[in-house]
């Protein structure tokens, strides 16, 4: 069923690589990276694809049943800028490329010692011939990691100082998913990329996993009055489920509904709120005007100040 799509994609990437990427590498004297560039080209294409898919899915939903309507959408444009900076996969790519070198060393040491390298297929040999099941397990484990990263963002003061940029948005849309401090983004990329390498996610599958999680996260931030129903709400994170997390009474350490893809983690750790008729206002009442209404740069500066104050406060204490 997907063969024509795969063929089309291959034809495009092949053309792009042979006519643009490889000649550029050759001209730059970087041909030793040609193989890696061919693999990682997927990231950039997937990044563009992500923005297109997310827009195509979420924008009509927001127009159809918005939770809130605004005359002034300037702060939303700030979130659009965040998205375009982050969605091309640059940060996860950097983390993965940096960590790939480290991982090659560590996995090599493990192999030298005669141990089994830490990846799912060697732990569960049956997965070697069941790539779809392995893929699903990788997503499950990475989503578990994201749940705990998100909880820590809310419970560690200096991390919350960074993450509060994300929660300061009072006009939350699907673009808000990428509204993060760059340091927070880097930590997230290292966390996610590090876990992916630890469990041995195949490099070829990594971009697809990023796409799946990113599309789910964007949808969950959408300004749409949408619930997945009694059962669906417990299977996948919905816009309603995540809106409760962004509600004004949920900011900071009192957070709930931390899950990114599977609400199961909130059920397991008793942090879930499944009231299906609640669509609260979003934002952080303690956030400064810079965090709420500032542009990208002002928010970054203010976030850095807050981080510094949090770290100094922790040291003084």
């Amino acid at each position, binding site marked *: 069923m997907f063969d024509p799509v795969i063929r089309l994609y*291959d034809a495009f990437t*092949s053309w792009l*690589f*042979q006519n643009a990427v*490889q*000649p550029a590498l*050759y001209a730059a*004297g970087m*041909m*030793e990276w*040609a*193989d890696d560039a*061919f*693999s990682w080209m997927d990231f950039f294409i997937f990044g563009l694809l992500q923005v297109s898919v997310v827009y195509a899915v979420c924008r009509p939903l927001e127009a159809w049943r918005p939770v809130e309507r605004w005359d002034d959408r300037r702060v939303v444009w700030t979130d659009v800028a965040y998205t375009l900076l982050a969605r091309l996969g640059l940060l996860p790519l950097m983390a993965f490329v940096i960590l*790939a*070198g480290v991982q*090659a*060393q560590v*996995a*090599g*040491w*493990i*192999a*030298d010692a*005669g*141990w*089994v*390298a830490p*990846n799912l*297929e*060697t732990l569960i040999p049956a997965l*070697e*011939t069941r*790539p779809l099941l392995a893929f699903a397990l990788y997503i499950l484990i990475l989503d578990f990691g994201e749940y705990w990263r998100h909880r820590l963002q809310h419970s560690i003061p200096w991390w919350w100082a960074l993450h509060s940029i994300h929660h300061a948005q009072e006009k939350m849309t699907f673009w808000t998913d990428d509204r993060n401090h760059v340091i927070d983004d880097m930590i997230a990329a290292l966390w996610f990329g590090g876990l992916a390498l630890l469990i*041995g996610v*195949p*490099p*070829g599958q990594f971009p697809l996993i990023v796409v799946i999680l990113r599309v789910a996260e964007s949808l969950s931030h959408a300004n749409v009055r949408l619930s997945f129903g009694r059962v669906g709400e417990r299977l996948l994170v919905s816009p309603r489920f995540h809106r409760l997390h962004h509600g004004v009474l949920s900011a900071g350490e009192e957070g709930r509904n931390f899950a990114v893809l599977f609400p199961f983690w909130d059920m397991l750790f008793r942090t879930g709120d499944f009231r299906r008729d609640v669509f609260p206002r979003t934002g952080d009442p303690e956030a400064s005007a810079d965090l709420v209404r500032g542009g990208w740069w002002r928010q970054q500066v203010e976030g850095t100040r807050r981080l510094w104050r949090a770290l100094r406060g922790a040291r003084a204490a």
Partner: protein
Amino acid sequence: MRRLALALPLLAAGFLPGAGRADVVFVINSLDPGIQVVDAATRAELRQIPALREPHHLALSPAKDLLLVGDAAGNEILFLDPSTGEVRKRERIANPYNLEFSPNGKLLVVTGLRRDQVDIYEWDAASMGLNLLSRVKPGDMPSHIAYRPDSSTVYVTLQGSRSIAAIDLGTRQVAWTLQVGREPAGIIWHNGRLLVGIMGSDHVAVVDPEARKVERTIRIGRGTHALFPSPGGGPIYVTSRVDSRIAALDPVTLDVMRVYEVPGGPDCISFDGQGRLWTTLRWTRQLALLDPETGEVATSPVGRSPHGIFFRNRDLVQARNEVPAAPATR
């Protein structure tokens, strides 16, 4: 009946016990990690052998009874039976990117591109055993391998160091290094000279290993990559991945005899009994069959980023059936 229908092509291709009378091609798909076995006559896929992460190159054992495939990112070598495709053993080896047996059949040298290492293993054919003798760190990104015919020295290209390293296999030390050009890739020994594909440029560097100098260059095309001497002392074929061509060199004069345009980034080559070239096209998910007489190129689909390739003819199976099989260990 359905089982029989499925079994017939496999029997014909020699991929079930008791059979083995067809020519097949082993294609290493580096980004759809695995080995694809293709019927040479129909170019239909016969079998997929999964690998863990990112296999690239392969080597046929001295007795021609095993095909060793290095899974660089999976940190293991797969030992395949070339007549059946059966995985007879998997061994944990750090970052096996490229691998070659020495001409005397006693050693296996493995380059670890990402770990900047060259491993020298002693080969025990009876037990399919690899005993690590030494690990050498010759420089940045060791890639392809060539031996001196007397097995005294192994030469490796260092893609990140613009050089080649000569490693003395007696002392297992780097004897010398030589700058040969930007991003050297393939390397072969030919008539007392080393021929090196300069991937960051457009030529083959001809190195005199005694004088330790580049004595001439031969222009091939941008991204000159790897070299493959045809059986029986015929032309040497050189791939170029940027200009996407294969050049045929005269084995005596090293002059370019003919250039074949092969779109898709030709990489590794294996020859069949008719002297035709089976080559992987790295950037197009394709396997190409080039007839050097007519210049005709036929392609067929394989997995993503196909790299190493091995044409196994029926004679190899017959020869292999005449020697006692080594005990299988898993």
